[in-house]
């Protein structure tokens, strides 16, 4: 897998400090790095951080203390880390520092399709754009060299198809490097604690670095196919380049197109910009997801791509889109690819028996949709949209601020405040939920916050959370309820959502308490997918009795994948059912009952 290849290269290049916050498609990099280090016996510090900003700052600091470091995240995580990125670029680094930001054109599992290369451009740091798992290994090496040559953070920007692509790669058995350095921090106040006067000097120095990197030979664009001078040329990077390369090799009609692979989209090489404009009649730029190379080549009369509307402005550049773009570019009629109109697709849903389903169902029961606003957040429970128990989500931590936002906005007409219920997962709460909770207490907002605590970061593959790590006495190192109380919340109850009736009572108590301020309910039950947690639920086998008339109420309101629609009577798929027994409380006709056998 591309992420494992990146991790292997990191360990081969002597990365000593590695941090990350999980996010698809980047999540496998950190554990794979740890695995390679264990395999080779390399000494390295590896940690899941509370969020991307903290991860960035810890790894960056290791680099200014002289150790090669890396931080990995998904593109929206880079938004969180961007504050540190912008300043880190000014101050620069000592040992090589790699910022891996994985983009998700499509998007397959992200809130946005944003292009991290633009963030590199804003920060004025170079970015490398791998087109395959194997080349990403080469780019890790190049990135460390570049970073140390110019004392600058370097971004590696793989996309989903690189991260989650797998390829045969010949690997020499990695060995732990013996030339291990000790971290040493050399004090230099004007650099590492620079005030605005010094920041201006640093900004000028950064500009000089970027100009030099625009002439750095190792990362120069590579000529992959040589066509006619004066004819058309294509400039591409990332997975779009991979799609393009196969197309040109397969279609004779495209053989005389000149093809360049851009290794470093920013800064685009000065000489290359001059050459390409001088030597070719027309230039097509194909890249994901935004026109980063194209902006730097902008010459409206010669350059074609996204800016003139030839390439769609959104979505993944699939081989079909790439082929038709090239056909249009060379004046051929586009091919008609028969793509069926979307049939009924299967939507993702919460797992059968998931504790979130029970929590969300209880919330709907206590706070009817017509009188309530449900703000939610980023995680598995976002799938509560299927249960119609999620009205909004914006970004990590947003559930709590949005609840405040609705409260204060609706509060302007004092008699018109709906019930507001925010839901947020445990890992998301730690990541970005604490400042908005303090803010809500201070601002006097009134709502119910349900922290869905399954003791893991579930959506991205069960990474740990601060509360899932235990101290020597077996208690969470950081307890959510103590954090909540520390934020100034006076009403905080813990309840088990599998005990649906008890949980509903707790929610009702929270509703009463929320008349005075923020009332918090921690819904605590382990994620069933997390093999690291003990599943000691009391299980119940259920069956459908003769009262079922197939009305579909349970399918709509509870949306469990183990409940199967059928023309006469709803069925239970026992291969899927996890025997949580919560559905016993769902059917208004009493058609779901405990199985006797």
């Amino acid at each position, binding site marked *: 897998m591309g992420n494992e290849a990146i991790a292997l290269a990191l360990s081969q290049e002597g990365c000593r400090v590695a941090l990350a916050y999980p996010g698809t498609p980047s999540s496998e990099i950190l554990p794979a790095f740890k695995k390679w280090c264990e395999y080779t016996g390399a000494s390295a510090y590896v940690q899941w951080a509370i969020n991307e900003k903290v991860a960035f700052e810890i790894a960056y600091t290791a680099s200014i203390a002289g150790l090669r470091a890396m931080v990995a995240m998904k593109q929206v995580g880079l938004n969180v880390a961007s504050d540190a990125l912008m300043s880190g670029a000014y101050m620069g680094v000592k040992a090589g520092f790699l910022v891996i930001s994985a983009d998700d054109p499509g998007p397959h599992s992200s809130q946005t399709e944003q292009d991290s290369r633009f963030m590199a451009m804003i920060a004025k740091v170079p970015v490398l754009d791998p087109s395959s798992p194997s080349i990403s290994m080469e780019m890790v090496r190049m990135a460390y060299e570049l970073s140390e040559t110019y004392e600058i953070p370097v971004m590696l920007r793989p996309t989903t198809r690189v991260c989650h692509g797998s390829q045969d790669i010949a690997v020499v058995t990695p060995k732990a490097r013996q030339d291990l350095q000790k971290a040493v921090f050399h004090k230099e106040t004007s650099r590492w604690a620079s005030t605005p006067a010094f920041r201006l000097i640093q900004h000028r120095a950064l500009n000089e670095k970027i100009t030099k990197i625009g002439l750095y030979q190792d990362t120069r664009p590579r000529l992959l196919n040589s066509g006619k001078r004066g004819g058309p040329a294509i400039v591409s990077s990332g997975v779009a380049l991979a799609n393009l390369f*196969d197309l040109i090799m397969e279609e004779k009609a495209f053989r005389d197109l000149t093809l360049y692979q851009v290794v470093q989209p920013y800064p685009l090489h000065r000489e290359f910009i001059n050459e390409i404009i001088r030597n070719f009649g027309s230039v097509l730029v194909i890249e994901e997801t935004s026109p980063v190379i194209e902006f730097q080549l902008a010459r409206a009369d010669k350059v074609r791509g996204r800016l003139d509307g030839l390439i769609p402005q959104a979505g993944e550049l699939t081989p079909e889109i790439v082929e038709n773009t090239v056909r249009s570019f060379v004046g051929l009629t586009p091919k008609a690819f028969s793509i069926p109109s979307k049939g009924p697709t299967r939507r993702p849903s919460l797992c059968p028996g998931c504790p979130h389903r029970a929590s969300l169902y209880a919330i709907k029961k206590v706070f009817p949709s017509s009188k309530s606003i449900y703000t939610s957040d980023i995680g598995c429970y976002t799938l509560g949209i299927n249960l119609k128990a999620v009205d909004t989500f914006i970004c990590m931590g947003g559930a709590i601020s949005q609840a405040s936002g609705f409260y204060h906005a609706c509060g302007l007409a004092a008699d018109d405040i709906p019930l507001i219920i925010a839901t947020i997962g445990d890992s998301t709460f730690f990541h970005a939920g604490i400042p908005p909770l303090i803010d809500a207490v201070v601002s006097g907002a009134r709502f119910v916050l349900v922290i869905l605590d399954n003791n893991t970061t579930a959506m991205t593959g069960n990474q740990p959370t601060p509360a899932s790590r235990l101290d020597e006495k077996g208690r969470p190192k950081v307890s959510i309820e103590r954090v909540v109380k520390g934020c100034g919340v006076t009403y905080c109850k813990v309840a088990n959502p599998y005990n649906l009736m008890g949980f509903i009572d707790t929610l009702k108590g929270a509703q009463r308490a929320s008349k005075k301020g923020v009332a918090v309910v921690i819904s605590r039950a382990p994620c069933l997918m997390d093999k690291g947690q003990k599943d000691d639920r009391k299980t119940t086998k259920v069956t459908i009795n003769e009262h079922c008339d197939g009305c579909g109420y349970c399918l709509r309101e509870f949306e469990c994948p183990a409940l199967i629609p059928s023309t006469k009577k709803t069925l239970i798929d026992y291969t899927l059912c996890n025997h949580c027994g919560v559905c016993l409380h769902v059917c208004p006709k009493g058609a779901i009952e405990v199985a006797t056998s």
Partner: protein
Amino acid sequence: MRQQILICGVGGQGIVLLGRVIAEAAILKGLPVIVSETHGMAQRGGIVVSHIKVGGFISPLIKVGSADIIFALKKETLPQFIHYLRPEGVALCNSPAESVLNDIRSICLDAEKTAREANNPKSVNIAMLGFAFARPSVDKGLRLFCSDRDIEEALVKRFVSKEEALNRTLTVFNRAKIQDGDRETKDA
């Protein structure tokens, strides 16, 4: 040898593992291989697709109309991905029905039944792989880039030091291989 294989189905059917086994068979034969699969939301029961390209490709994705073989592990996903099949390709679909699509390039075999009969009901993925070598598939023109022996070798490598799991897997694979597609009991 160049071959493009698309596997489609839903989360939990072992599509990623199936892709790995095929890729490992390619590596054992010394063929370059690139695999691309969807992750993320798919892990919560959504559709999973794996593109496998054997023999010197750079692009990780199969272009519409160029797959040589499609394995549809869930029959409902076949109509959504059949457009990837090239005109001479073969689509193998897991279904007890005689046909799922009115498309002469597709063939249906019941992988759930075979997996169940081999006492390994979760091995629908391996049953499908075995079907690639069964008579009805071969009659239809399906030719995987490697032999059944190559697949067995890849499985042995995959399940090294997990003998019991290996034997259970091989039982499904071998049972699927000899599937003759005879449906008279059903039609009667």
